[in-house]
């Protein structure tokens, strides 16, 4: 079931496009923002609201990198693993994250505090290596900086 607020936001997006289904990506984002991830139940609820089948919606949802079809932690770390960050040593950052959090790419800490995901290019290559946690961008990373950054996220 979608909440009244979710429906309101989705309907706003629907009003902006000529074909109802065209707002389905917005709808996924709205629900994910609200719930953290997109469960099968959410897929069915959104699909019903969008006049789509679960398959049609999930086909879209599973195509994109940042629609989470599995539960994620409270904070999502997106570590850039693309070329400039590779040159500037993102692998060290990754190793450090693994040591600190005991998780690899695609995993969530047992306390659900962090989910760690690789991410292609954050568009800040002049300040590589970089990562985002939730909506916050961190650049020119060093392992020392990283420890302080992680502390900010509970």
């Amino acid at each position, binding site marked *: 079931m979608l909440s009244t607020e979710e429906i309101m936001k989705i309907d706003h997006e629907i009003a*902006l*496009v*000529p*074909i109802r*289904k*065209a*707002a*389905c*990506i*917005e709808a*996924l*984002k709205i629900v994910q923002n609200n719930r953290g991830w997109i469960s099968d139940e959410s897929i069915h609820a959104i699909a019903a609201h969008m006049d789509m089948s679960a398959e049609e919606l999930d*086909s*879209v949802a599973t*195509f*994109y*990198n*940042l*629609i989470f079809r599995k539960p994620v932690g409270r904070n999502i770390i*997106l570590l850039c*693993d*693309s*070329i*400039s960050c*590779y*040159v*500037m040593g993102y692998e060290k950052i990754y190793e450090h994250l693994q040591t600190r959090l005991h998780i690899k790419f695609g995993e969530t800490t047992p306390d659900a505090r962090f989910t760690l995901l690789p*991410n*292609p*290019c*954050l*568009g*800040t*290559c*002049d*300040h*590589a290596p970089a990562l*985002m946690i939730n*909506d916050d*961008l961190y650049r020119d990373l060093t392992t020392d900086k990283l420890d302080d950054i992680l502390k900010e996220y509970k």
Partner: protein
Amino acid sequence: METPLTQHININRPSLNLKDYVRVGGYQAVHRAITMSPQEITKMVQESDLKGRGGAGFNTGIKWSFVPMNDNAQTKYLVANADEMEPGTFKDRLLLEGNPHQLIEGMIVSAYAIQANISYVFLRWAYKKAARLIRQAINEAYAAGYLGKNILGTGFNLEMHLHTGIGRYMCGEETALLNALEGKRATPRTKPPFPQVSGLFGKPTIVNNVETLCNIPHIVNNGADWFKSLSPGADAGTKLYGVSGKVNKTGLWELPMNTTMRQLIEEHAGGMKNGYKFKGALPGGASTDFLVEEHLDIKMDYKSVAAAGSRLGTGTMIILDDHTCPVGFVHNLEHFFAQESCGWCTPCREGLPWTEKILLSIENGEGRPEDLELLRMHTKFLGPGNTFCALAPGAMEPLQSGLKYFSEDFEKHINEKRCPWR
């Protein structure tokens, strides 16, 4: 030296709001444009020789001229491609965060030129700050009557919406972007039919890169000749050039289009970091061919870079230094491309993971001599026209040139059964 695109950008200060933007001459191009016919604007842009700054380098005015202009009742769309996701590319971020009104103004003029009534900014999800600023700027523009119904009393209407993506490199390809805007999987479409006749929701559509659109107000304000005069070389206008990698001062600069690679690296980026040597560079993002030492003095314009065997692409250079393994470098790129393949056509879907696996095995010291032949086969058969879109051919550019310029390094991995850099 004029820097029209970045003249009002100061990254240490907030971007200009509408009032301040107008004070420095903003939205003059809209006022000017509405005194002209759409065809006149298109002609002017065509004459200015503004080439698409997204990477393809096609004349923007000519691109617009394919939009049917005979049916005024028809819905048409303009889309700003702000899905900057080419690895190593960070130029549009500056324009989006630094001066969002410049983009909006460019979009209004462009929409007027093709008589589009609905426009979208297709923005990369990661650009959170840009999203906030653009949303704010769009609202301001509506309030000031630059967007909405009957703009400046001309009878011209334009709606503008911000759409933020959810992550897929493919969305940067204009037809895949249209599918994403339609709420579909971002697989590309064939051309023809071109988006100009059958684009978003099947209607005539223009998709332009942010940097391209940001140039439009300046061309309209100052004329085609002025724009051409910005660069003494083969191409017109300024270009945002970037350098990332092991240089002293990574960054982004608006420069005339006759700047050489050497100037970029040595003057603007302050040269290689101490202890690092220049080994090669991808001149315009991940999907461009390596250029090496011998190319340092070529001019960074479309033609010269092409003549050197690469592409200007986005104009943001990634430098390969002597401490970085070229095999690992290329593997990183192919991993990216394999992951970002949409899965539609066979060569890309199956070929890229294969090259990725080969490169990884070479990097891990498990490569075989015949692997190089297999890699070369892929560079040949994943070429333009053989795949559905340009993703795989782009992916092959660094690989083919890597094999050409760094073949010794590849062979060394195979012969020594290890990565010499590890």
